[in-house]
């Protein structure tokens, strides 16, 4: 037995060393390809990070696919400043630790600009490292406030607080309600962030928040208690700062209870019409603030949706739209400064950073986006309402 144990530890230690050496092999390989790339026609290297496996894979895949689509289009049209773009994506399994590992992997590959991470917590963890390396980071969908606390990080989507504020203002301006009930997911960063700001912003508005009920991801199947409380409090509008899967259950259960207030959601609600076995007629009249609707009829959206569907076989959601915009925003910023791939990562970051505050981008998620140095986008929120099973502009 002793012999066997010795043998075992020797094998395992050598396996460990082999792993390290394999890791080194990769490192040298990465630098050598980078060198050769620089020698014969340099390329911009853009990386993306998102959860490609696990429960949140839908979001990560949307981001990574759309970014890939945008890169392919840019390459077909002649690249950025005449240089082609190389693209690579890494999985983070919705885990901040893995997200940093993914970032390091991409760095070994030679990444110069990062589109990611897809989710807030991961994006914050990665920003700590992009800050150290001074690499430009543009998160398509990391919406928590802290995502853009460093000056090298910008975002495409609205921040959670901004969505809460915009929702409160929209309900106030359009006099949609007198009494508002809220149902939110207390175990979710996104939902909490919007909820907190919504309540804070509701002070002094022409409506009153009469109930605020929470649920968590561990008990998201029965919402009758929360709905009953909103109903008893006489809420004529229920604000749902949550993702569409839970919202579809809420709508179904409200219908069974015979409770029919106006439901108002935010961008996480986008996708509710695609939920399986959900009677979409229940979503009639549902309002949501969203930057992107897949059935909009402008050329840009139509093109994007057809190409995306052709390539990946599904209708893109707002995550995909944000990522698609992100790549084009990077392109615009690089072009504004005439950046070239042989510049160092840090120089590219400085150039793009200063360009970001100067450019005015047009994309799927807004016809006019500008940024200030804080990294927050300025764009108009769009409200849509579901009519006859399709999004229609609410204004």
């Amino acid at each position, binding site marked *: 037995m002793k012999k066997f144990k010795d043998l075992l530890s020797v094998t395992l230690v050598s396996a460990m060393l082999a792993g390290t050496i394999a890791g080194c092999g990769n490192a040298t390989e990465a630098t050598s390809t980078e060198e050769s790339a620089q020698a014969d026609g340099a390329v911009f290297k853009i990386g993306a990070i998102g959860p490609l496996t696990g429960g949140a894979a839908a979001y990560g895949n949307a981001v990574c696919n759309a970014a890939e689509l945008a890169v392919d289009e840019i390459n077909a049209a002649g690249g950025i400043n005449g240089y082609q773009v190389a693209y690579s994506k890494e999985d983070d399994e919705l885990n901040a630790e893995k997200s940093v590992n993914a970032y390091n992997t991409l760095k070994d590959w030679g990444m110069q600009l990062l589109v990611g991470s897809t989710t807030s*917590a991961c994006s914050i963890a990665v920003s700590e490292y992009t800050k150290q390396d001074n690499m430009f980071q543009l998160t398509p969908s990391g919406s928590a406030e802290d995502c853009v606390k460093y000056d090298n990080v910008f975002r495409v989507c609205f921040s959670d607080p901004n969505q809460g504020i915009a929702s409160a203002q929209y309900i106030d301006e359009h006099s949609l309600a007198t009494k508002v009930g809220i149902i939110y997911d207390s175990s979710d960063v996104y939902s*909490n962030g919007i909820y*907190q700001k919504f309540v804070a912003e509701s002070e002094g508005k022409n409506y009153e928040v009469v109930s605020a009920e929470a649920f968590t991801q561990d008990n998201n199947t029965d919402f009758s208690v929360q709905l009953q409380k909103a109903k008893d409090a006489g809420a004529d509008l229920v604000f749902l700062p949550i993702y569409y899967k839970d919202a579809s259950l809420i709508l179904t259960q409200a219908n069974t209870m015979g409770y029919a207030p106006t439901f108002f959601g935010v961008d996480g609600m986008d996708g509710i019409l695609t939920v399986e076995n959900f009677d979409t007629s229940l979503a009639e009249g549902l309002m949501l603030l969203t930057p992107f609707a897949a059935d909009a009829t402008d050329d840009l959206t139509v093109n994007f949706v057809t190409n995306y569907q052709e390539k990946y076989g599904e209708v893109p959601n707002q995550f995909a739209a944000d990522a698609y915009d992100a790549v084009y925003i990077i392109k615009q910023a690089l072009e504004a400064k005439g950046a070239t791939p042989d510049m160092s990562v840090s120089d590219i970051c400085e150039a793009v950073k200063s360009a970001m505050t100067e450019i005015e981008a047009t994309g799927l998620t807004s016809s006019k986006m500008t940024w200030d140095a804080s990294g927050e986008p300025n764009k108009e929120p769009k409200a849509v309402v579901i009519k006859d099973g399709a999004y229609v502009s609410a204004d």
Partner: protein
Amino acid sequence: MKSKKIRDNYITYAVVILAYIIFQILASTGHLSSHMKGLLVPMTYYAVIAVALNLCVGILGELSIGHCGFMCIGAFTSAFFSKVTEESIPQAPRFILAFIIGIAFAALFGFLIGIPVLRLKGDYLAIVTLAFGEIIKNIINAFYIGVDSNGIHFSMKNSMELGMDPEGEVIVNGAMGITGTPHDANFTIGIIVLLLTLIVVQNLVNSRDGRAIMAIRDNYIAAEATGINVTRYKMMAFTISAAIAGAAGVLFSHNITTLTASSQYFGYNASIMILVYVVLGGIGNIRGSVIAACILYMLPELLRGLNTYRMLIYSIVLIVMMIVNWSPKVIDYRKKLVAGFKKG
């Protein structure tokens, strides 16, 4: 017999130190990719918590599947401390104090949980520890703690209830957890913690107390009959195990700047992953736990090149490794093979 055991302990330290030296040389000569560099710190804290769990499962003989709960306590208490004192205390003493606080709180909870839990045995104990791990996670998710000039504000409802000054800062924000913990952990500190853990656990195992603990594991009634204070030794092993898990939590929270009490880090899946490290490394085999933790943490990362297939391959490799290591038939076969080599 005794000297053999001591030699065995030194081999373990030597393996860890050797690995450290090799990685440091590789890193300083620029042969280590940033990916590998990033993996080093997580590897050390998973090794630490694997050793902690091995003390509970292998030495004490009680199956705990809530050990990530202790890691969670260590992570949150120390991150809270570091965040609050980030401006006022310089890095080195702050991090040492953070360790003391994280370990102390994890040990305290280990002790408190241990009182009711250690009356149970086997499956029942496993279920209660599992429940405990989930409770910790959910309670921390409901905490809102802020600090301003008036002191600490606390709420279990939401951050608006804190009633803070405008310039006050919300430190623990419910499900959003703690963000912006200073990035204090590095590979050297991780290795030091791992070595200290090994010294504590291995010396405990070879001490009078350790033999008493193992006697309880091997035969509860006989141990009690020979006059061993069963409750005391059980509590001792369980509390030390929780304290070490807390130390792993401190490293965790000071390595990744966002800390959320979500299930992918501290849920029962994570606890079971650590149990897998322990089982693969060999129940009761401390060195095995360290090596298994390192390999199993690295494996899915090194398989990144295979994209989404890597999870599938990781699972298959896990099954194969378990069979190769622990199936009696394979062990027999390997023994024959080794004997064959010796003859030849």
